[in-house]
Each structure stands twice: as C-alpha cells, then as structure tokens.
C-alpha cells in the first residue's frame, strides 16, 4: 500500500515538479524560494495523496498550496530581504533577453502577492476565474479585480521598456490601459 503510494507519487512528481516550480517562481520571483514552495506543496500532496488521487484533484490542490504558501511567505518580513547565493546560475542567454526577463521579473515582483497570484493563475496556468478563485480561496469578484489591477500595474511598469519584439504587441497593452 505504502509502496503504491510512493511509486504513484514519484511518477506525478517527475512529471509535474518542473511545471510547479515555474509557477512558483512567477509567484515569488526567486528560484530557491520557488523550490522551497514546490517542496512544501509536494510534501502536502504526498500526505493527502490517496484522497487527491482518488478525486483527481492533485493539480488543483498543488496550485492552491503554492499560492497560499507564496502569499504567506510574502507576508513574512524576513523573506523580503534578498537571499544571497554562492554562485550565479550557469545559464547561457543573450543579453537582450536577459534584460527583458529582468524587466518582467521586476515588474512581477512589484505587484502585491494577491495580484501576482491572480495574474499568474489566470494567464500562466490558464485557469478560469472560478478555478482561480478556488485556488486563492477568495471570491470570483476578487479574482477579477486582482487580475485587472495586476495587469494594469504590469502594463504601466513595462510600458517604457522594450519587452515587446513586435511594437504591435505593445500597442495591445497600451490599448488596455
């Protein structure tokens, strides 16, 4: 019985850990914290695995845990400090894309946790308003207002940057302001 749980959970973890970590990163803006969040979520998923697996609600639960943990963490003052690391990530990328990614990350980091979660879940995870509300444990109206405010803030923060390769894309954002 325990072996079944372990093997099923391991299979799920293999397939979903990377996706979860990306979502966690967008929620918190730090890869190390993202891994912490994913680990917290996976541990909770393991504990509730039989029920979640039976109900087919593993992904929804994992998103809920990630969002709740990220929002809780963001409220802790010590987490707001930068976390020093020994080495820079060894990732090759061209300078322009790195600049763009940095701009987006800065813009995301400037959003309040609730707005960031609403934007990430709605537009990155592609969840409906209803699903996002369940994950954030709030009303659908709150999701709509948080997502709208988050998008507006992102547009404002990115409007003066060169994030968009295609100027038409930037026009789209400008139209929504």
């Amino acid at each position, binding site marked *: 019985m325990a072996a079944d749980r372990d093997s099923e959970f391991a299979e799920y973890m293999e397939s979903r850990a990377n996706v979860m970590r990306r979502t966690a990163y967008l929620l918190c803006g730090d890869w190390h914290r993202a891994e912490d969040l994913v680990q917290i979520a996976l541990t909770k998923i393991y504990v509730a695995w039989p029920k979640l697996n039976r109900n087919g609600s593993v992904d929804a639960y994992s998103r809920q845990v990630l969002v709740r943990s990220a929002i809780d963490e963001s409220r802790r003052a010590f987490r707001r400090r930068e976390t020093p690391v020994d080495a820079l990530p060894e990732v090759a990328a061209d300078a322009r894309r790195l600049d763009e990614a940095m701009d987006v990350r800065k813009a*995301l980091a400037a959003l309040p946790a609730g707005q960031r979660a609403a934007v990430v879940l709605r537009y990155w995870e592609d969840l409906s308003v209803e699903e996002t509300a369940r994950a954030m444990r709030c009303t659908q109206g709150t999701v709509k207002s948080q997502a709208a405010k988050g998008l507006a803030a992102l547009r404002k923060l990115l409007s003066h940057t060169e994030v968009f390769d295609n100027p038409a894309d930037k026009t789209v954002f400008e139209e929504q302001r």
Partner: protein
Amino acid sequence: MNREFRDGDIRDLLGGALDTEPPMNIDRAAVIKAGKRSLRRRRVAAGVGVAAGVVAVALGATALAGPTALFGGPDLGPADSGPKITGTAPPATETTRPTAATTPMTNRTAPSLAAVARLPLNPEDGQSGRLRAIYEAAFTSVRPLPHWADLIPSNPKFEVVDGRLRLLAELKDSQGIGEFRIEVAKLAGPGTERPCGTQSSGKVDAITCEPLDFGEVPGGRLRAVYSVVTSGSYIKNVMTLTRPDGIEITASSTNQRIGGAGGHSRSEPTLTKANLRDVVMQPAYAAW
C-alpha cells in the same frame, strides 16, 4: 485584437521571465521522507487529540459531578417513592437532621444519581491507613462484639465516593458474614448533613430514624442519628455522627455480604447500635 491573443501575449510575457531557469534540485527521496514524517506527526497528533478530548470530557464531567466523577459510576440508587417509616425514638431536639418519625413518612427523595462517583484508594495510602487503624482500634479496645468477629477479607477496601472516604469490609462471626462500612466526610456547612436513610439504595421497605445526643465536647455537641433500614429480610444498621468540627462519620453493618452476594447470610447485622456507636465515636477520623 481578440481576447485570446491578449491572454497569449501575457503568457508569453510571463514565460519570458523564466528564461534563466536553473536545473532542478528537488530530491524525490527527501520529499517522500518529509511526507512520511508529516504523516507520522499527524497520526501522533490525532492520537494525542483523542486523548486530550477524553481528558477534557472527563474533566468537564468532574466539574459538573464532583471531584471523584472521573473514577466511577453512581453509588446510590433511587429510593422507593414511599417507604414506610416506623419510628421508635423520642422527638429530636436541636438538630438539623430530620426528626425521628413516629408516623409513616412518604415521598422520601433519593439523592441525585449523577452526583455520585467512586475513586478506589490504595490501601497503602495514608488516608486508608489511618481509617483502617481507627477501624481496628474500635474493635479491639472499646466494646466486645456480640459474637466473635473477624475481617473477611483481611484487607478492607478503601475508596472515595462522592467526596466521602470509605472503608468497605466483610465481618464474619459465628452467625455468618455481613457487610460493614465506615464513611467519613467533611460537611459543606451546617444543615448539609445527609438526611436519615439516604445511605440506602434500592427498594426499601422501612427506615427508622433515631436522633441521639452523645453529649458536650469542645466546640459543641456530638449529635448522631441511628437508623435501621429493612427491605424484605435485608437489614442494615446505620449510625451517623456529626461532630462540631463538621466531620460526619457513618458506620453501617448489614446481614448480607458486599453487593448482596449469596443472599442474606445471617438474621441480624453483625454490629449492633452500641458497636456502631463505638466505631463512630473514635476521635481520630479525618475527612478526605
């Protein structure tokens, strides 16, 4: 521009923030180990929670039913709604206990079942030892028993019932075996003595209540009530003494074994009124 395009555009924008994704460092075995640890903690917490719940309920019951409610069930049964009382004693004078009845009494009310509970006491307990010493002194030094008597079993039981320290034993003499009890309690205040006959449980045919005055002692008078409870062939002699210091001592003797085992083994209780007087008049009693 339609909405799909705009949502997709935002998704691309968010995806752009992930360009510098480092390799994954999450250890699968560590996650599973942490999960198992969490499961264990939950199970332990659940066990502790259940135990705490039981304790809370027990404490609640104790708060409602008295300090010994944790450890036992009801002691006193409901009295018959209309026992026949045949009084032989003179009218009571200056006593808070119900006066001796010379006419049949009706509608006697038994004490509440819910308020009585039982706590077994270790015979090695200091209170048990003192009570046993008094008990033995009463039989060896004061007045000879009507028939040669012995303790069966040799070690009496001790318990606290509804706040009353109790010794419970069986006395054997040449006529058979009978139950014997001593109960010691500290009264809450004047007028809180148990009414005559409330020590009896089950169906009672008759109770006689005789008030007694054992004279003056420092602090006040020694007052007592002697009662005889009968129910069919069952007979119980009860002597209850109330001291000026608020200690109430009740000694009783019956003509059957503890719990009525084997029916009535003798025609009369082992101890007489005079024997019971000697028992309750011992000066060393202390309340629980």
